[in-house]
């Protein structure tokens, strides 16, 4: 099997993958997919877009998943691991696939977590399956001499992912659940300030639901750390051609633009995201956004 490579160095490829292992982990399905060409250039924070439903399906759009880890040099080629929650019809299809079944993969997609140039203390925060990309990130950070502390949060124990992995990859790991079924009862942000202070962390990496990312950004900023957050917006293409996945982000020039979270994200500096724009599931274009004025004519 020849390894497909992107026409842009490090860019995405499309490859006919195959599931080579499936495991149930709490509420999630952990899939290992043989996908040569994807693993080789992927970095933590990037994602893959998987086709769902099989041939002649009525589900037209790919589903996006953070890359949990990669193994660039398996026997048959590189593999990619993803952790999937059964959240709807497409993920339901994925979580009911067996070993040996084909899955079409496009990846690696998006911008990875930016890594500190010098060894820094970092706190990694994950909500639910949002922890999936963090352990790989932790490994990469520790290789660079960074101290890593991890906080895992979820609604309940079965929705935690990677409690053991967290312990292995970090100096300290803390668990919170909304219902108190594991670890500290409450939100990740209840403990985050303390963990930042204890580690004297300068960067907080976070992945999880929008509301959590906003709260993490607030706490990080208040405690003098920079938040790097991986967002999850509804994506029709995942590769930057459709303009469905946009969100308001402030640029270095102080101007807010509707950026594509698939190619200009999914990782953004938390304090550049205009969090106040989301209300009741609707993401409003801020009035001061570049190009907002032109929308008023029609």
């Amino acid at each position, binding site marked *: 099997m020849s390894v497909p490579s992107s026409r842009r160095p490090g860019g995405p490829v499309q490859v006919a993958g195959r599931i080579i292992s499936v495991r149930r982990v709490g509420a999630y399905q952990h899939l290992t997919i043989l996908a040569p060409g994807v693993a080789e250039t992927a970095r933590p924070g990037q994602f893959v877009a998987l086709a769902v439903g099989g041939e002649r399906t009525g589900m*037209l759009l790919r589903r996006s998943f953070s890359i949990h880890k990669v193994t660039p040099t398996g026997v048959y080629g590189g593999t990619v691991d993803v952790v999937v929650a059964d959240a709807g019809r497409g993920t339901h299809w994925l979580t009911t696939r067996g070993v040996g079944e084909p899955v079409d993969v496009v990846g690696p997609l998006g911008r990875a977590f930016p890594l500190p140039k010098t060894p820094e203390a970092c706190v990694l925060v994950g909500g639910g399956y949002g922890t999936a990309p963090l352990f790989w990130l932790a490994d990469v950070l520790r290789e660079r001499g960074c101290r890593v502390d991890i906080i895992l949060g979820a609604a309940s124990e079965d929705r935690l992912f990677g409690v053991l992995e967290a312990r292995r990859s970090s100096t300290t790991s803390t668990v919170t659940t909304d219902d108190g079924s594991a670890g500290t009862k409450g939100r990740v942000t209840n403990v985050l300030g303390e963990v930042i202070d204890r580690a004297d962390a300068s960067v907080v990496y976070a992945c999880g639901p929008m509301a959590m990312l906003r709260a993490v950004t607030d706490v990080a900023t208040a405690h003098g750390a920079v938040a790097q957050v991986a967002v999850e917006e509804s994506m029709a293409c995942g590769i930057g051609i459709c303009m469905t996945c946009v969100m308001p982000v402030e640029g270095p020039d102080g101007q807010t633009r509707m950026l594509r979270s698939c190619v200009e994200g999914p990782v953004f500096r938390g304090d550049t995201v205009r969090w106040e724009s989301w209300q009741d599931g609707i993401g409003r274009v801020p009035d001061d956004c570049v190009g907002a004025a032109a929308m008023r004519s029609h």
Partner: protein
Amino acid sequence: MTLDVATVDMTARIGSLTLPNPLMTASGCAAAGRELHQFFDVGELGAVVTKSVMTAPRSGRDTPRMAETDSGMLNSIGLQGPGIDAFVEKDLAWLREVGARAVVSIAGSSVQEFRDLAARLADEPGVAAIEVNISCPNVANRGLVFACEPTSAASVVAAVRAVLPPTIPLLAKLSPDVTDIVEIAAACVSAGADGLTMINTLLGISIDVDRMRPRLAGLTGGLSGPAVRPVAVRCIWQVQAAMLAGRLPTVPIVGVGGVRTGLDALELVLAGACAVQVGTVAFHDPSAPLRVRDELAKAVQERGFSSFMDAVGHAHRVLATAEGTR
């Protein structure tokens, strides 16, 4: 006969424009080609049709902007884009650089805006054709969509045609959401359209049954994807049939709507399209436009046509022969 590589002549002619093959991206489904260029050389396509550009930069609409539906999707992007100046400087320049043929789609909220956009593009090198996206609300006419009314549609086409050099063909892109598409097509052709692109999306709504409100922040969206292909084929067929019957002058038709495979593209071609755009399906399969080109070439060759252009509108001839011998 099954072929790996087809050798049939795939040259496509759209009026004065000659393309190496009939495959294009669809406006709004390929940005300006840069992202797809990671998957294949966009210069290999017949043309790249760029996202409809307006005068000023636009933020686009609130999110969510998309909803998946059965074999299709709704979108409500609101023509997010950089505005014509940035488009010309960055996107058009890039397309020229990589040797791609650019069909530039323009959109306006007034006839004047369409005219100004066309004038701005008239002297730019590397514009293979202009596609006017008239499925936008006409601010001067109670926000009624230009494409839904023959005189509005015609006034845009006439204004744009007047400022373009004859070397640049003008394609009018029609909406299927009308009672009589032939009437709109005829109005556009009389006003000087060199070709017609069919179809734009169908107006649709999807409701989130949990939040009990429309899924799209913008309420309505455009329905696209394989679900709408029968409507696209019907529109192409009706207009081509009207041309064959002499009800309007014959101009080339560019087909778009729900194309997933080369055989889907062939449906549009047999109905009358001399070029085919791939839209939504590129979201699922980024190399679809090029894959469809190869599949179409194979399908055309296997059916014994000596060139692609011979297949254009062929189903009308088959049907006429069948009816004749009945």
